[in-house]
């Protein structure tokens, strides 16, 4: 994955580290794949409740967050290209923008979750326990899946911050760009998972 053999200058193999990163991304997709299976089974069992429960979610915030993540995916890709072309300063600026967008996503998420919890909708709450089984499962899945995704956002932010420092001190440079590329790949993955979560929870009919 991202900690490829950077220290061993004698066998630096960008192809290997990219292959490793792709395999790792594959396991992440399978991790969420398990949740998608659970989601589909329960939605099949409780179609009406799932539809009614999704009306409680704030599509506007979800939409804004989708835009934020898509733009951040673009900026990280641009940062990689800038680095490949040797423009270190631009690359750093674009990375910083990506990190700010990620933070904005989390702030949005905080307010969204906060509103739900304020309305007494959270796993195990008395109010939620009084609703139907489909509602309980919908909100259980909602909190679990978006929570796990938010955790991935945080991991991605840590990763990109480390890369930011490494770009700054020059250990990631025009000739050794694979760590930055792999960080970008991870960020695209985080984005991609959200692209699935958004319609599944906010837009279903």
């Amino acid at each position, binding site marked *: 994955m991202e900690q490829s053999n950077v220290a061993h200058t004698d066998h630096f193999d960008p192809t290997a580290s990219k292959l490793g990163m792709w395999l790792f991304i594959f396991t992440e997709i*399978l991790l969420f794949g398990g949740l998608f299976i*659970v989601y589909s089974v329960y939605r099949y069992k409780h179609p009406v409740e799932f539809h009614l429960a999704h009306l409680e979610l704030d599509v506007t915030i979800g939409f804004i967050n989708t835009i934020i993540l898509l733009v951040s995916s673009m900026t990280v890709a641009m940062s990689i290209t800038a680095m490949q072309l040797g423009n270190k300063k631009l690359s750093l600026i674009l990375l910083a923008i990506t990190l700010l967008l990620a933070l904005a996503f989390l702030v949005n998420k905080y307010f969204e979750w906060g509103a739900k919890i304020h309305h007494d909708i959270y796993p195990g709450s008395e109010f939620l326990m009084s609703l139907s*089984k489909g509602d309980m499962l919908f909100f259980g899945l909602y909190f679990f899946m978006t929570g796990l995704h938010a955790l991935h956002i945080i991991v991605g932010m840590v990763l990109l911050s480390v890369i930011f420092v490494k770009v700054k001190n020059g250990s990631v440079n025009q000739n050794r760009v694979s760590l930055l590329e792999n960080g970008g790949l991870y960020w695209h993955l985080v984005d991609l998972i959200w692209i699935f979560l958004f319609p599944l929870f906010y837009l279903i009919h």
Partner: protein
Amino acid sequence: MGPATYNALFTVHGLTMIFLFIIPGLAASFGNFMIPIMIGAKDVAFPRLNLFSWYLFILGATIILVGIFTGDGPPDTGWTFYAPYSLKTNTNVVLTVFGAFVLGFSSILTGLNFLVTIHRMRAPGMGFFRMPLFIWSLYGTAWIQLLATPVIGITFLMIAADRLFNIGFFDPAQGGDPLLYQHLFWIYSHPAVYIMILPAMGAITEIIITFSHRTVFGYKAIALSSLAIAFVGYLVWGHHMFTAGMSEIARLIFSFLTFLVAIPSAIKVFNWTATMYKGSISLEPPFWWAMAFIFVFMIGGLTGLVLGSLSTDVHLTDTMFVVAHFHYIVFGGAGLAFFAALHYWYPKMFGKMYNKKVANRGLLLLFIGFNVLYFPMFILGYMGQPRRYYDYLPQFATANLISTIGSWILATALIIIIVNLLRARKGTPEEIDDPWGGRTLEWKTQSPPPLENFEDIPIISHEPYDLISKQRVDGTK
């Protein structure tokens, strides 16, 4: 011993043996040592990631051990953590499943590392079909580790979340589906059996080839059967749930796929036999271990077919028959192969030789003890003794007594074998770069191998088991 203690004991036994010994035993430990050296590389592709996965393994193991000794007592759910009981019991389930999750992460990173290593680090001239067969089996294993482990990871996280936040994924009272848990659990845990047995088969293949002093029979068939087992093994999880409430069609398909796995397994056994045919066999301890493996693995495999067919499974499911079958495969198969590999590569790893006579006697005793211990369980299961009960009816007493005697023989044998290996550690280093006349790359460097394995990276110009490669080594020495 009360029922609660008994439940905790078999749970902890399953957890430690499966997650801490037999899954990492052959694949991770021998894989880490042998993959780079057998493909002629200095190290694995990502050495630091490798170290990280080792730390994760220790962390996961520690968490599980802490989970056993703290809180409201060790988990008593069986190693399967079946919902909804695993959601309701008061014992320390959350910590234990979290430990297993960390171990899974370690296993994924190891598999990933092996895959990249095999793809990128092979010595010049070593195409995929010039790799030793142990590497082929580890290649299949690594794919299973990568593709199956995430599913159990997320399932364990869901169990933990169910308990901590009362979400109810698998709790019928809240709309959850316990059967869904079983599906998710076995999607990993059946392929996990192949994480145990595939490297075992690979090690046995190496041993049989070396001690037959013949080139291997059916190289491509053995190599591809490893991948076939990995692939089909991914799709047979439903056979753990024949009586749990699946549709008739699903049960038929899963039963059919289960029978399919027997084909690549049998391909291996027949090719081993054909390799030995007209060979010049030297009867060294690793070879005896391999023979013991084939014997018990055959019994384990054939009784697997009994459990894989729907009608007989209904009679035998959740009886001691299952326990016997499982131990014939996992202890008799993977466990014996682990010791076979240890006896085979021991001189390579330490540059010292153990006492062969003691090793042979220990194995003989182990073989007797093993069969005395587990074979009566087949009969007990057929007679109807259920598993996971802390007591049994009087008519089962004799067979259980025989089984207990077997367990003591087995334990004695294990002590003899392990002490023999430990004592050899203190012996004087010998010049045994190639004690068995092996032909794969690990025998062409020193024992123990130097840092970065080879003085010069070898260049491969022939098939892995060609006798010509043996002659070349003899010629230069």
